[in-house]
């Protein structure tokens, strides 16, 4: 029997604000423990929360980018639970009236495009961080109260790979919308995963398990690659799936039951008496909508139609907004956008990868890349020279057109001069000429190489090849 997998994700995203959700403490990663705290985020009795308006705007902005309905009225609630990461014994969250509902995110799967429906987006406060010592645990409240947006999907995802594709697509959207730094190493995006399987043909979803607090996309991928087959195996053997929270052990590559108490999830939500509801006027929402940037999917389609790029190339370029911005700035000044794209896809991404650098931190500018493309398009320089210049621009920056002029790197396209070099090479490489005539066509390449050497790399290789073939065919 075949089994179908249903996966739903709850993605927690740290919003890009300066201060916390309900107090003025700085939001930041890596500060000394408990140096960014106050009575509000320490959960002192009587301390009053005040809502950060920017966090509300960023959440609504996210909703708008995924076509969600923005609720005219929204409120905050207390979610009660007991754990040392939350001294108030409740987290301020949103229960039945979230800011956004019913959106969708498009993803690419091997079988084609697919839509993952978003159930809701709500806003809440992050909790403290626990550290574990041998005989005790420590609590650092710097993170407590950081604005956290929770994006909840419908169980539309059907494989580990789709879950991964969804997270990649979502991260791109969040980066384009500039609502989060999306720094995974700093825990900006964390994910709870709900997974169930059911026999093919069965309408109703199977019993789900929850994998909590995965902080890498690879972790989600690998955990699901284990968990879904595990459930199928249990069912095949005639067992039943228990609704439970499981922990992903990345080192062992397995999920294990956390045996939490059954009543641990009785959160007893009730309206937060210290916070007033959020009421969003349509005019306000429309004003925010007007500031939305182009989203990665639309941009990818535009790169194909406007610049004539293959869909794959467009997908690679738009994956990172700053890379796409760089490409576009260069393409607008260059005679051939496809040539710009080729430089980006090959040399630029290769060098960025090798040097582990960000495109914002390298000296090469879009203007310089456009200049380089102008030089190659005009065949002023050949491709080897262009590659050398690119590497130099990448390291030190500069103006390629000035560099070529100053150093006399211009390609020799003078037919007479090249013909003379070709004749010299033919005369001095009689053996290769003979090999060529005997049918060893590769011998011609050797002679081309000799001509290039004589020209100090400046001859136009296409012209050299053409002249050489003419000469050899004529029986020179």
């Amino acid at each position, binding site marked *: 029997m075949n089994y179908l997998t249903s996966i739903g994700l709850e993605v927690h995203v740290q919003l890009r*604000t300066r201060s916390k959700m309900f107090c003025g403490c700085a939001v930041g990663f890596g500060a*000394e423990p408990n*140096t960014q*705290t106050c009575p509000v985020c320490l959960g002192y009795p009587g301390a009053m929360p*005040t809502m950060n*308006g920017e966090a509300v705007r960023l959440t609504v902005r996210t909703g708008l980018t995924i076509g969600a309905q923005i609720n005219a009225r929204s409120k905050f609630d207390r979610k009660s639970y007991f754990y040392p990461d939350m001294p108030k*014994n409740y987290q301020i969250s949103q229960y039945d009236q979230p800011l956004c509902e019913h959106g969708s995110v498009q993803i690419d799967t091997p079988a084609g495009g697919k839509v993952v429906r978003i159930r809701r987006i709500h806003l809440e406060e992050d909790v403290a961080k626990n*550290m574990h010592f041998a005989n005790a*645990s420590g609590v650092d409240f710097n993170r407590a109260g950081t604005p956290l947006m929770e994006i909840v999907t419908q169980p539309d995802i059907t494989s580990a790979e789709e879950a991964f594709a969804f997270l990649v697509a979502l991260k791109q959207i969040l980066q384009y919308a500039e609502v989060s730094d999306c720094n995974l190493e700093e825990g900006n995006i964390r994910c709870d995963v709900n997974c169930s399987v059911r026999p093919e043909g069965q309408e109703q979803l199977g019993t789900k398990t929850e994998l909590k607090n995965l902080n890498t996309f690879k972790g989600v991928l690998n955990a699901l690659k284990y968990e879904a087959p595990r459930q199928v195996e249990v069912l095949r053997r005639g067992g039943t799936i228990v609704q439970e929270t499981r922990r992903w052990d990345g080192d062992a590559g397995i999920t294990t039951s956390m045996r939490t108490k059954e009543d641990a999830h009785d959160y007893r939500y009730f309206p937060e008496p210290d916070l*007033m509801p959020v009421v969003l006027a349509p005019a306000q929402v429309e004003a925010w909508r007007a500031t939305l940037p182009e989203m990665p999917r639309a941009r990818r389609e535009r790169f194909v139609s406007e610049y004539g790029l293959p869909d794959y190339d467009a997908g690679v370029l738009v994956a990172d907004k700053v890379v796409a911005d760089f490409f576009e700035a260069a393409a607008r000044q260059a005679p051939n956008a496809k040539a710009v794209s080729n430089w980006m896809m090959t040399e630029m991404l290769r060098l960025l990868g090798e040097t582990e650098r960000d495109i914002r931190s390298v000296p090469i500018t879009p203007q310089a890349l456009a200049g380089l493309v102008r030089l190659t398009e005009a065949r002023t320089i050949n491709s080897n020279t262009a590659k050398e210049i690119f590497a130099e621009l990448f390291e030190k920056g500069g103006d390629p057109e000035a560099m070529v002029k100053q150093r006399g790197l211009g390609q020799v396209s003078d037919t007479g001069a090249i013909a003379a070099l070709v004749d010299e090479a033919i005369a001095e490489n009689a053996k290769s000429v003979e090999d060529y005539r005997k049918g060893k066509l590769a011998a011609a390449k050797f002679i081309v190489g000799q001509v290039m050497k004589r020209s100090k790399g400046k001859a136009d290789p296409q012209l050299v090849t053409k002249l050489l073939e003419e000469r050899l065919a004529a029986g020179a």
Partner: protein
Amino acid sequence: MEPAVPAGIRSRHGVCVLPMSRLQAFTRETGMDHESTDTSGIDVRYVANLARLHLTDAEIDTFQGQLSQIVDYVQTINQLDLTGIAPTSHAHPLENVFRADEVKPSLDRAEVMRNAPQSRDGQFIVPKIVE
């Protein structure tokens, strides 16, 4: 007529911090100390466990009766026709109370740690968390 709420009930955090003697007096004054037929649906033992409160059986009995009466009393509102009335969580007609996204100075850590029963490396120390 509404009973006067004795000073000492602070409901801002949704928690009743009334001393036991005052609560007993309050329930007497309001007639809540009579045996009730408990239609509240409150299970004190369960709720106490959720709230990590350790209550004796006698306390559970006492609170079961008292809390049931309080909830029964609040349920008086159900005698009204509430069709079309949205649940109200605030009496004030205020909305959109925001602050600007500005960083304010945090507390000095030494100050923060003065309230920690135990601390180490600038962190609050709690009993070892076992998941």
